């Protein structure tokens, strides 16, 4: 989407990375129990410069350059939480989170439950995630489903600078532990940000209305879905695009409400399809709105392989054309790109979907 100019005095034009920076700065400013911790976040300002300038402004006591140990970043943040600090821990890259997996799923997620509500873990874990940055192995992954599967954690993401700002503010204020997955491929996209908006961590957002097909997306694929909607409009197809925003909890209600009107659902994300957000969402919609479905739900996702070398990532990640093909399949119409006519075939005989 093209960046718009500032509409009023309340908004400013920021990149998504700067919006995250602003949310961190405002959180540090507003609550002296907030502190940041992570590798290279201080002097360097983070490898993506997301924390640029924060150590200068708030000092090394509150913006802590940590030793290189992911399990320790989360483990010590747990200890700080016992004392009432609200730690915002940065994991430098999605593919580096696994050493901290035990501390996140076995400790952070369960401490409230284990202690019968006596211990609070108001911890935020920031994770740059997703593809499209053209880097090497372990620098582009989508591990969100591992955490969405874990009770006790909130897992959220953002698609725009405004969403990044509002979501991170809410995450830091939440008394629950929150994993905030930042779409690193979108760090440098610009948008309007109103700093007075702090959103909830529960609801999805309908970002484009349409009557024919519902596409549910989150993080980096929201933009892809919106572009697909614009392209489909040229052929007279109205696509409703939902930005899920929260991966856990999933706002199934909003999606069900949309599917009741469109009768068709496509879920798209960069993560592989197996045991993913799309698995969960489609199952939930089938449970609750089966009678409203006019066609089998579709998934346009990463394939069930590891992320490939980034030279071929564009074949792996959901694209506008893969989305539009799914739109044609679910509508049972002739594909204007390939000429394939889906009106005569059942979904089970089509083998181009990621999940088949």
């Amino acid at each position, binding site marked *: 989407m093209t960046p718009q100019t500032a509409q009023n005095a309340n908004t400013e034009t920021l990149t998504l990375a700067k919006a995250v920076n602003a949310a961190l700065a405002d959180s540090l400013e507003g609550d002296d129990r907030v502190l940041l911790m992570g590798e290279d976040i201080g002097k360097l300002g983070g490898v993506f410069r997301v924390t640029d300038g924060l150590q200068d402004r708030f000092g090394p006591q509150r913006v802590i350059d940590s030793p290189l140990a992911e*399990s320790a970043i989360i483990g010590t943040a747990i*200890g700080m939480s016992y004392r009432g600090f609200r730690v915002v821990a940065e994991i430098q890259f999605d593919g580096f989170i696994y050493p901290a997996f035990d501390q996140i799923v076995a400790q952070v997620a369960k401490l409230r439950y284990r202690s019968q509500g006596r211990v609070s873990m108001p911890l935020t874990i920031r994770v740059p995630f997703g593809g499209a940055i053209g880097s090497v192995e372990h620098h582009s992954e989508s591990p969100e489903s591992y955490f969405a599967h874990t009770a006790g954690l909130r897992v959220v993401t953002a698609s725009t600078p405004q969403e990044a700002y509002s979501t991170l503010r809410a995450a830091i204020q939440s008394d629950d532990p929150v994993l905030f997955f930042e779409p690193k491929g979108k760090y440098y996209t610009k948008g309007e940000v109103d700093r007075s908006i702090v959103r909830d961590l529960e609801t999805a957002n309908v970002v484009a209305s349409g009557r024919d097909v519902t596409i549910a997306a989150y993080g980096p694929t929201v933009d892809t879905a919106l572009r697909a909607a614009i392209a489909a409009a040229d052929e007279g197809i109205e696509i409703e695009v939902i930005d899920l925003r929260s991966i856990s909890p*999933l706002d199934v209600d909003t999606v069900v409400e949309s599917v009741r009107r469109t009768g068709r659902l496509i879920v798209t994300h960069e993560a592989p399809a197996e045991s993913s957000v799309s698995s969960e969402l489609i199952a939930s919609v089938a449970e609750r709105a089966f009678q409203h479905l006019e066609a089998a739900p579709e998934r346009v996702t990463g394939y069930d392989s590891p992320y490939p070398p980034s030279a071929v990532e564009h074949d792996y990640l959901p694209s506008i054309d893969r989305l539009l093909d799914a739109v044609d399949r679910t509508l049972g119409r002739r594909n204007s790109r390939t000429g394939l006519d889906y009106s005569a075939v059942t979904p089970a005989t089509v083998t181009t979907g990621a999940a088949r």
Partner: protein
Amino acid sequence: MSITVPAPRPELAVGLDCPLRVLDLDGSRLPEPLLDGHLGDIDEHALTNLYVDMVRVRRLDVEAFALTRQGHLVLWPPLLGQEAAQVGPARALGDDDWVFGSYREHGFALLRGADMGEFARIWKAYAHSGWDPQEIKMAPSQIIIGAQTLHGVGYAMAAKMDGAAEVALTCFGDGATSEGDVSEAMVWASAFQAPVVFLCQNNQYAISEPVAVQSGVPLALRPTGFGIPSMRVDGNDVLAMHAAARIAFERARSGGGPTFIEAVTYRRGPHTTTDDPKRYRDKAEEEQWLAKDPIDRVERALERMGANMEAVRAEAKIRADQLAKEFRAAAEHAVPPTAEAIFDHVYAQPSPRLERQRLEHRAFTSSIEAKA
């Protein structure tokens, strides 16, 4: 938090050749220059208190073991033989200090003031946590080996940030020293000079594996590589443990950073009630350690001081039996959680999805009850 990177200081590892000891096996006092200055106030009365503590801890442990055998508890990891290693440091803690322990820290739990009724619930599998962590300043017991060391370091860092003269004590076993988290905890403690004390109860076994499987060097040598001073102490000598803990806590409180204490002790019982030590160790070894029993040693020391041991024993027994009785009653009468508890305290903000599942489950159970 400013980071300093201390150099390794192997010269600060004391007791590597022979663990520091104050009380000899016959109860006589051995000169130990490093520790003696920290025991000046320990008179017969204070030693008697430590003795009674150890007797109570042991009695609780024995009672819990029996309760498990009788089917009242599902599992028990006994600490038999490790009473001094826990009571010594526990009695050196200040009220505001925190403990981050493993699952065998019953001595700490008791002396920090854990409610026995709640404590019993853990080992009946009625609850995951057997006390209010904020109330007794002790984190819930930890089963994931070594994970709590990081929590202790983080807490200590936070206390330092708050300018509080508080210490975090983190307890773990010899097996845990092989876990990455424990090394990471020492990296951080050293880098941030956190007021944390690492208490490694080297009870010679990680379930069935002798400590030689974990390390070819004394465990107390390791922290020096991180720049952390360490003491290797006779873990069956309650006075040596008490003095070493005092030194470590004082150092932490006065800005001197972390200390590592290796308590050389012995797990006389099985790893837990499901374990069979006969398969991996011999009687001769067990008997050799029996001679170093921490409670017998204090009895001899008190006798040498001229204490009326008969009266002390009787008093200790009354208090220990009272505790055992209280614990047994708690274990026998503990009320299991309701199924509703499954859905409680998962999130600070209730999750609509989970609340729906709560209602589904409620409807399902009432449908069964209606039929019955």
